[in-house]
Every structure is written in structure tokens, then in C-alpha cells.
């Protein structure tokens, strides 16, 4: 008996069913939602990711921040995301409208960043933390992103942008640490992460 046609047909149909369910259906369901809010969310996207923050997201992608940091707040009663202060409410699909790629993440070796811009609005803190996470967070296992900073001899005046390191982390005299363009962009992106506002979808 030649079973080949049965196998081909079965293999095709079983696969097509899930493709329709997990790829096509969510796309159809979520796309109209986007157009209903298109004007508002486009404006929001542009505001949030104007210029330098958008470049900062590229730095976030290039250096794989997503492998240790999620950007999603689970609902109340499911995990302790809200109790940990990671956000005042769960995040919803609308929070991510227009994001490419969407950076929900699947790992929390480090804390969630869905609202890090609101939770930690200090650019100074972020620069110190990226330069050496142990300065702001003793015991952290995050890598140093010192390669995003320039460690240089002070020539003439000290730069305005140079990091103010705490005494125990001070460099040898005559040197300073200055954020590169990439570091500034990354911090701008982190500060833009704020999903605390209410949206149509989160209205009670």
C-alpha cells in the first residue's frame, strides 16, 4: 500500500491548523486593535522612541539585555510582579503596539524592566550601573558595560558628562570615565520604558 499521500496530507493539515491558530488568528485579532488606537499609539511610539532612545534600543538588542531582563508585568495574583513594584498594573497587548521587535523576554536573571524609566528615573544611576553594576547594586551578577564608556586622561577641563564615581570606586587621579554615544542612547531608551499610564485596554 502506498501511504505516502496520506502522510503528506496529514502532515500538511495538522501543521496548517496550528499555523492558523497561533500565527494568523492572533495577527487578525490584534491588528484591528492597533488601528483603532493607531493615531494615539503612533504618537506615543514616536514620543517614546524619538531619535536617541530608538538608537538606544539597538544597543539593547546588540548586547542581548533581553536574555536576563523581561519587559512585562504579570497580573495581580499571578507571581509577585506588582508587589515587587515592577509596575502599578499588568502590561497589556496595547502597551506593545508598534514595537518591532517586541522585547517581552523569558528570563529574569535580573529584574523586569517594563517600567524601569518610571521606577528609576535617574540617568546618573543608570550610567553608574551600566559602567559597573556592583557600584549601585552590590552582589549583582550583571556584566560591566564598561566598553560603552571611555576611560581617558583628563586633558584641560574635566568633562561635564564624566561619571561621579563613589569614593571607593574612584579612578587613579587625572582620569575620568565618559559615556559614549551608545551609552547615552541606551540610558535614554531605559528612561523611556514607562508603561504605567492607563490605556483603553486597561480601563476597568
Amino acid at each position, binding site marked *: 500500500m*502506498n*501511504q*505516502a499521500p496520506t*502522510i*503528506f496530507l*496529514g*502532515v*500538511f493539515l*495538522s*501543521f496548517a*491548523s*496550528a*499555523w492558523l491558530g*497561533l*500565527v494568523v488568528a*492572533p*495577527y487578525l485579532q*490584534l*491588528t484591528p486593535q*492597533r488601528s483603532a488606537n493607531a493615531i494615539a499609539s503612533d504618537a506615543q511610539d514616536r514620543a517614546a522612541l524619538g531619535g536617541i532612545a530608538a538608537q538606544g534600543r539597538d544597543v*539593547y*538588542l*546588540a*548586547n*542581548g*539585555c*533581553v*536574555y*536576563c531582563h*523581561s519587559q*512585562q508585568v*504579570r497580573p495581580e495574583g*499571578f*507571581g*509577585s510582579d506588582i*508587589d515587587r513594584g515592577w509596575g502599578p498594573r*499588568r*502590561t497589556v497587548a496595547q*502597551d506593545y*503596539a*508598534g*514595537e*518591532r*521587535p*517586541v*522585547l*517581552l*523576554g*523569558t*528570563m529574569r*536573571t*535580573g529584574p523586569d524592566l517594563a517600567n524601569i524609566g518610571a521606577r528609576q528615573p535617574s540617568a546618573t544611576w543608570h550610567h553608574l550601573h551600566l559602567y559597573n553594576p556592583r557600584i549601585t547594586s*552590590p*552582589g*549583582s*551578577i550583571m*556584566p*560591566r*558595560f564598561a*566598553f560603552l564608556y571611555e576611560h581617558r586622561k583628563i586633558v584641560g577641563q574635566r568633562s561635564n558628562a564624566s561619571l561621579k564615581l563613589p569614593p571607593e570606586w574612584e579612578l587613579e587621579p587625572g582620569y575620568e570615565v565618559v559615556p559614549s554615544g551608545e551609552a547615552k542612547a541606551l540610558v535614554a531608551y531605559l528612561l523611556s520604558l514607562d508603561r504605567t499610564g492607563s490605556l483603553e485596554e486597561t480601563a476597568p
Partner: protein
Amino acid sequence: MSEMTAPAVHAAADRQVFARQRAAIDASARLPVLGFFAGAVFWLLVGTALALLASIKLHNPEFLDSAPWLTFGRVRPAHLNTMAYGWASQAGLGVLLWLMARLARAELCHTRLLIVSVAVWNVGMLAGTIGILAGESTSIEWLEFPPFAPPFFAIAFALIAVSAMVTFRNRRECHVYVTQWYLIGAVFWFPWLYTAANLLLLYTPVSGVSQASINWWYAHNVLGLWLTPIGLGAVYYLLPKVLGRPIYSYQLSLLGFWSLALFYNWAGVHHLIGGPLPAWLITLSIVGSGMMVIPVITVAINHHMTVVGNFRQLRYSPTLRFIVFGAMSYTVVSVQGALQSLRTVNEVTHFTHYTVAHAHLGVYAFFTMIMFGSIYYIVPRLTGWEWASGRLISFHFWTTAVGVALYFLALTFGGWWQGLEMNNADVPFLTIVQKTLPYLRARSAAGLLMAAGHLAFAVLFTLNLLHFGERRSGPTLFVERPQEADLALTVEPAGS
């Protein structure tokens, strides 16, 4: 499989015809299959080095951290992609092509195209891996290769699919064996998955959280509908072949295959439980994951009943020992996966090292171990040369088996505990981080063991290609087997 189920009925002339056919098939498969295996072994070593680096960085974050290309967030996706597409997929492709030809009893078709595809695949691997390390990663899990790399794999795969399907069409054997169902599935599913996911995520990306659904539909199916069918197909072929007895039940084989085809598809979105996606979507995926118990238990019974009564042969045959370890791991990882997709369990395990342990139980303890076993079986038939040392194969088995067991236990316990603490808002986050350190160090130790095994494997593979040492008359076994009739291992001599 008539040559195996009733060997006695064949007249001597028939046996000679079959032997000549096998020799012709193996000759046709020699270059492409060895090419894929050589590529696989190379990327296994690269992926292992990246794995050790990533693992050490998690407990010594300042280890080699001055160069951007060595930062954790680049090394980790480079590890995943070299292992998934460099090692696992290429080992799987070699096994798939050889099994396709052997089971069709037809020579492998378009072997020149296949050799081109080996080259194209590995050029894509090199370009993509360098791209990730250079900071071009897409940060889309399992699809991190920068947009210039996927066309290499798509082109190479198109050539491979043509060769596999033409070989299947030319089959001399009219019965389609269970292994072939799985292989046809894999050949058909992977290109659809890969093309759809790349188009919708990289080239013309859809917007917002639909991407996450597509991403996990893809990533979970790379294991479920690409690696798993090749792994199970290899077990369905090698168990009866090495033991010299047929698969226990044809009906169970049918049920196992079709329930896998139906349910595995749906399971991927359980990676997004608790996330900002429609509830129906996630619930559907949980149902699909739960239903996976059916194919898994079916296949487990079928395999177990095939081996039962012959477990002592694990003492002798390297192939058998690796694939039985792999097949048992398949049952464990799949049952664990179904449980893990339940919301109450997932609430704890999601976002923790527990998931990492689970992934390695699947891709390593199940799939990779089966590939090791398959390669130990196939390569001597292609090179006409037996393995140089049974003791070195034994070293390979024990380092990798103990290594992956330690890996799994350390991260499973560490991860479970990490999840419980993370769900208790009274425990400061950095306290949890500190308490995971011993488990992360144990993982590095496990990684070192596995790395030692991989080196032994690479040495054996290279020595075999070089025809090193003295010619052996029979297959290389762990220990010499007594000459009792009831222990006969039906292994064809190399080159026959």
C-alpha cells in the same frame, strides 16, 4: 524492513543483492552525510566553548568582559544558535539523509547539490555567528542571526528537501516505515516554520505582541517538529536494527506519530503564560502541551517494549546505550514539559533557570544523545572504518550522561527555588541572585564534563575519518561480547 524481521527467509542470492544495494547507498551518501557530520562536530566544539564562557560569566560577571563581543548577551545567543543550527540541525540532516536513502533502499539523489548545501549551510553559520558576536543580533530568541544569514539556510534547506524527496520517490521498498513518516514530517515542517517566522519577524515584521506568539510558535517547534521527529525517527530505526527484533506495535507507532503531528504544533505559546496576550491563545497552547502526554506515553511504551528483555545489550553497544538514554530522556522531558505548561507550575518556573534546565533536557539529553548514538552507527558504514577506541566512546558516554544529569538537577532545583523566592515580594531581588550562585557554579562544572566528552567525540570522529590505527574485524563495542547465540547483535560489518 524485511531484511531485518525475517532474515532467515532470504536466499543467499537475495542477501548478496541487498548487500550490494546497501554498499551503493552508502557510497552515494558518503560525502554529503560525512560533510554534515563534520560541520556538526565543528560547531559542537564552538558551541561548547561559548556555553562554558556564558556559564562562567553568570557567576563571575567580570570574566573576560572588556571586549564587547565577549559580553554575556552576545555569547549566549551565539551559543544557542551554533548548537541549534550548527550542531543539532547538521547532525540531524546527516542522519535524516542517510536514513531516507537506507529506508527507501535507493541511492541518495542529487549528491552534488547536497555537497553545495553543506557549504552554503556552514557559510551561513559562520556569517551569522560572527554577526551575533559583532553586535548584529536581532534579539529574537532562536532567530538571532542577522537578516543576512537566513537566506543561506533557506537555500541550503531547499536543496536538501529536493534530494530527500526525490530519494523517497525513487524508493525500491514499497512499505513506508515509521521512521520515514517522521522524516517526511521534518523535511516538510522546518522550511514552513523557518520561512514564515523569518518573514513575519525579520523582513516584514508584524507589530506588537503577535510577534511573541509567532516567535514561540517557531522556537518551540524547532524542537518539536524539526529535531524531535529526526530523533524519534532515528530511535525507531536503530532500536530494531541493533537489537535484531521488530518494533513492538505498529498501531502504537501510528498513534504516536499522528498525535505528535497534531498536538506539538500548538504547544509553543505556553512560553508566554502570564504575558500580555489574549487568554484564549495561551489556554489553547496549554491544552496542546497537555495533550502531548498521549504521543509521549505511546512512544515510550512502544520503545520500552521493543527493548525489554534486552537491556543487558546496553553493556556492549555504544549506539544502543546513547539512544536508550536519549529515548528515556524524551519521555522525561515531555512529561515535564506538559506539567510545566500548567499555569500554577508555570507561575513558579517561568523566568527562572528551571526553564534552562528543561531546554537542555530536551535538546541535549534527548536529541543530542540520540545524535551521538546515530553517528556512532552510521559513520563506520560510510568510511569503512570502525571507531578507534571503545574506552574513549565509554568516556564520551559517561562524561556527557553524568554532565547533563548534573546540569539538569542543579538548575532544576536552583530554578524552582529561585521561582518560589521571586514570587515572594518580601525577599529582596539581590538576595535571590546571590543564592542562585552555587547552582550556577554546579552548572559550569557540569559543562566542563560535557566539554570533555565532546572533545573525546571530536577526536574519535577525526581518527575515524583518517582511518587511524589497525583495521578491526567487527564493530567497536564497550566490552567484548561473549559468543553466545542469544546475545547476537545484528550489526552489519562496516562497509557492507
